[in-house]
């Protein structure tokens, strides 16, 4: 039955080449931890992606409870944390995942750096990687404000004061992010929108490019 449905679709959409391309590519020995244990360093990129998936899924559930305004934000988080069954697990996954993603990203970057994998022809994938790093840091910064307790509030205030130091652009950047002169009602809606719409969209786009380039160029050969 499933085979028939698949055949029907494949006849029209030519599905096989798409998934066979993903499934059949060769994994060389030097990146396979089953052959050389030290090759686990090549897992960090995959684990980063895995954590990004955790962030997206747990974030979608957080968004079902979160109210992005200064009156309700804190209380909605508190409600989720203390009242909703498994709420603290969903929030915990997103909270700790945000740190784990940075750790994994850092390890992945070091792996790529120390194996010299950014050299020709992979320069552009390194650049895409650096942009990914910036996007993840941006997600961390904007997400930190959302629980709207003192820790969140004052860290954001300091962050925006630092942004203001940038010559020429600084005050505009600050004004754009804060949505006004103070960290307040308009800041939280902005940070929310940036955190759940703008940056994830850019993240997924960059990840797509990152993975397509890896498939095109293959992983760098053994040292």
């Amino acid at each position, binding site marked *: 039955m499933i085979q028939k449905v698949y055949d029907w679709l494949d006849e029209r959409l030519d599905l096989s080449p798409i998934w066979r391309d993903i499934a059949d590519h060769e*994994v060389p020995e030097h990146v396979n931890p089953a052959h050389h244990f030290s090759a686990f360093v090549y897992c960090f990129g995959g684990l980063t992606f895995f954590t990004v998936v955790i962030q997206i899924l747990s974030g979608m559930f957080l968004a079902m409870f979160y109210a992005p305004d200064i009156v309700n934000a804190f209380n909605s988080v*508190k409600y989720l*944390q203390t009242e909703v069954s498994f709420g603290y697990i969903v929030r915990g*996954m997103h909270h700790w995942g945000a740190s784990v993603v940075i750790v994994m990203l850092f390890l992945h970057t070091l792996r790529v*750096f120390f194996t*010299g994998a950014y*050299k020709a022809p992979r320069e552009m994938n390194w650049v895409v990687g650096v942009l990914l790093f910036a996007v993840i840091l941006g997600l961390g910064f904007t997400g930190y404000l959302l629980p709207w307790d003192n*820790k969140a509030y004052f860290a954001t205030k*300091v962050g925006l004061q630092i942004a203001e130091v940038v010559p020429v652009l600084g005050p505009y950047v600050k004004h754009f992010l804060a949505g006004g002169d103070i960290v307040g009602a308009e800041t939280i809606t902005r940070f929310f929108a940036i955190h759940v719409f703008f940056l994830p969209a850019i993240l997924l786009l960059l990840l797509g490019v990152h993975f397509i380039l890896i498939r095109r160029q*293959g992983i760098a050969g053994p040292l």
Partner: protein
Amino acid sequence: MAHERNKNDVKYVGDSRVKVRKEKLYPKPYSEYPGKTEPFFPNFLLKEWMAAVVFLGAFMVLVVSHPAPLEATPADPNDTSYIPLPDWYFLFLYQFLKYFPSGTAVWGAVIIPGFFALLFLLAPWLDRKPDRRPSKRPIATSLMLIVVAGIVFLTYEAVVQHKAQVEAMEASAAQHAQQAAPAPAPQDQGTTATFDPEAAYMQSCSACHGQDLAGTAAAPSLIALNLTVDEVVDIITNGRSGSQGVMPPGMFSGTEEQKKQLAEWVLSHQ
């Protein structure tokens, strides 16, 4: 039209008019490398998912055993005594900035970090010899090691300094409370008119229960207690030991009347 093209001359991509490029930049296929290559799916992925399971297991243990922190009250923009702390992965930048006096902040916030970020972004063009082994790229390798060590050091310093700052703040708040309180009253004077329960709390109780009454690692929150004034007075006089630790007796040595006022003040935080 298409059949008029001279098929031997030019090749096109699919049915488009885009010419196929002759030379590809792609690296040589893995079949040319020695060793045991295997297909991504099923061979590789059906073994490697184990790594993901172990990772997820450890992650969920962390999540369940360490609930995500949330302070007891919403943000209070007027709280001038709050010492801000960015998330840990920004601490090195935050700390770095502290070494720059206010007039030169632009160096610490923008110019120097920006310079390093640019080096990082342009690494493939700065380090362009084909050698890939770290030992054959001494400049790149040592620069990265120094930067990583610097980040670790700055993060550590930031944490240490933040701790010291919080302790100093608490000590000065306690001192402040001592000065504000009418001389830790010789007990019989009972000058209830000038007794300030808040100051007494800051002096005698805040070290364990927190300045905002929200509790600390040492003692539970005192907000929204379900106790009577007499019960709290009893706890202040005789202490208490229970599931959340031990509160020694005699933490506050005022008159009975002052204890009552302190208890009332504590219970007013609902």
